[in-house]
């Protein structure tokens, strides 16, 4: 009877909160826009036509033209593909070693833990953007530098999260019982540790993607990172800023895109705290 009373109380909190559904829907819409547009709309993000400089949206060109007469629709979808792709890559490259090192540090303890934590703290001591800037300064003009730099900043979060959760878990009776029953480390990671950290990794991943997108845009805005004519959201803002009066619709597009992207990711990430 104890079980019957407590059953409905067991945390059946749904993964799919309203907030998260809105976030996922928004992100799906953005992804669809970025990846479907090239198939249905025939236009190059770099082809200029000076007749159309700063042209207003028309039926054929629903987003209008920029200051060099390039199609904003093509440029926006290309820029979003770049941002989404880079953010996704950064999150994966940060999460995999971050989680692996976190588990390793928590499990081994002692010097392994101290050494890895020291490295993590050293990275943390530098402001994130500064680290990326330094990295880009060292390996000049390499497009991948942006992504490596951002991953270097992001992995620490995964490391710390995983380490703190794993440390409690590896000492738990459940893990001890599994070891006594003859299970190896891989099983313990798969059945004990991963189910506990997975929902949190998703949250951190969504936040991480948001900050990666913001960082890419911010770096391009200050003309570090991607070079023209590559379409990139931050770079587009810089380029279109002087034409704010003539074509506010053009400048607003990358701004709104960044806003919606980060909003959607934060909605996905944030619903756990509620």
């Amino acid at each position, binding site marked *: *009877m104890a079980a019957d009373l407590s*059953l409905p109380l067991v945390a059946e909190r749904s993964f799919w909160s309203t907030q998260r559904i809105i976030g996922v829907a928004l992100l799906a819409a953005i992804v669809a826009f970025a990846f479907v547009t090239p198939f249905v709309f025939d236009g190059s993000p770099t082809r200029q036509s000076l007749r159309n400089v700063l042209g207003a949206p028309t039926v054929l060109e629903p987003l209008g033209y920029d200051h060099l007469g390039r199609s904003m629709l093509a440029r926006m979808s290309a820029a979003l593909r770049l941002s989404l792709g880079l953010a996704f890559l950064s999150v994966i490259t940060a999460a995999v070693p971050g989680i692996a090192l976190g588990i390793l540090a928590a499990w081994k303890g002692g010097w392994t833990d101290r050494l890895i934590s020291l490295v993590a703290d050293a990275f943390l001591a530098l402001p994130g953007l500064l680290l990326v800037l330094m990295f880009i300064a060292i390996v000049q003009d390499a497009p991948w530098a942006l992504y490596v730099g951002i991953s270097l900043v992001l992995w620490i979060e995964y490391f710390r999260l995983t380490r703190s959760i794993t440390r409690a878990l590896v000492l738990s*009776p459940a893990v001890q019982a599994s070891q006594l029953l*003859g299970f190896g480390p891989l099983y313990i990671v798969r059945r004990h540790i991963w189910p*506990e950290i997975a929902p949190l990794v998703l949250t951190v991943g969504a936040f991480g993607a948001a900050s990666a997108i913001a960082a890419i845009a911010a770096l391009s805005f200050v003309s570090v990172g991607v070079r023209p004519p590559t379409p990139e959201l931050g770079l587009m803002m810089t380029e279109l800023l002087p034409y704010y009066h003539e074509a506010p619709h053009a400048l607003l597009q990358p701004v709104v895109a960044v806003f919606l992207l980060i909003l959607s990711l934060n909605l996905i990430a944030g619903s756990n705290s509620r």
Partner: protein
Amino acid sequence: MSTLLVAEDVAVFSSHLLVHPASLTLQAGRPFTILGETGSGKSLLAQAIMGTLPRGLRAEGRVTVGDQRLDLASGQGHRALWGRTLGVLPQEPWLALDPTMRARKQVEEGYRLVRGLPAVQSRIRASADLAALGLGNAGDKLPSELSGGMAQRVAFIAARAGGARIVIADEPTKGLDVFRRDEVIALLLKEIEDGGGLLTITHDLELARQMGGDIAVVLEGQIIEQGPAADVLGAPRHDYTKRLIAADPSAWPERNAAPKRSAGVKPVLTAAGLAKTRGGQLLFENRDLTVLPGEIVGITGPSGCGKSTFGDILLDLVTPDAGTVTRAEGVARVRFQKLYQDPPAAFPQKVPIRRALNDLVRLHGLDGSRIAPLLERLRLSPGLLDRLPTQVSGGELQRFALLRVLLLDPVFLFADEPTSRLDLITQQETVELLAEVARERNCAVLIVSHDAELIRKMSDRQIAFGSPPDAAALAA
């Protein structure tokens, strides 16, 4: 004898009825105990009377405290009584103290902020209270510097500093060993002697027995029996009460003499000269133990005496400071197994039980068809397999833990307080099953419990752990 509190037709609802209308009367100088197992609704009943029900639940009925009548349905009027008339001794009181505030300050607050006394007088009264319970030197200590028993006394004094004459104690002995439990009972009874009112909520039959006074037995949200403790516990009328009393280890039938063992049997495990220190304190030294196949060995002792550590050393989970452990040759390591104190903590939290068992079957290439008969033997419903460990009761989960180790044909099983988190009836079922199954399979069991009676009734031989005076008390 004056009446302190009268509760009439108190009921608790969520979407449906959780606690059936119940009435009780609390007299000055006479303890009242609500006895029931986990999930029986006994705490809800007390919370309804206190006006501290969790959100989402509502109460009905009337409570009269002194000359004040409260309508529980309105949910108002309690606040003025809290601390001044009604005090709560929370579950696990050492967690209820502010860890950053010194003991005397925590008591002082009650006098100053609830009773409104000036600061100097508050301090004098607080010091006097502490001294009265033998805590004269503890006033300047932080809760972390106090022993568990001292912290409990501080929490008790703090709960009463506001002048509450009616104390509601919610599971005051939860998680305590016998010695600490007797301390708490003495503390509560002292309150009664001084003419206060005491409402105790517990699942602990022994506590109810020692408190005396009046008692109400709660089952599934209903008071099934009520009256003077001596009558109810001495001559129970309701079937459940009878079963409850019969499930107390002191009422268990005496065991048959242990089966004779031939001298030539090889032990499954031999320990010699084991010693272990923890945090600079010697837990034990020169401990020897020889466990024969199929033998049930019991260990008793107060908490913190190292009895669990001893078992962990035997399983090679902890390294001893000195001594050796020898296991029977040619027996696989996985046939030395352990049962844990807190069943839900011994399973992967987010994996259904079926998958955890299947993993084990696959890992060792076992015969999966053995699970079904074992389920039946352990009286477990196959439907439970698809639940998460948090979704089955503690007793069921402990039996699943037993099933899990039985799949490996253990020769030695270390049961570390396997029933201390279970209700009495469940405890008896679990322990009996454990003993039966161990005998059937000739598996040796080392069972650790702070309940000396349980150990005496269930094991072939006993070992007492702990400092000498305690050990003597236990061996008796």
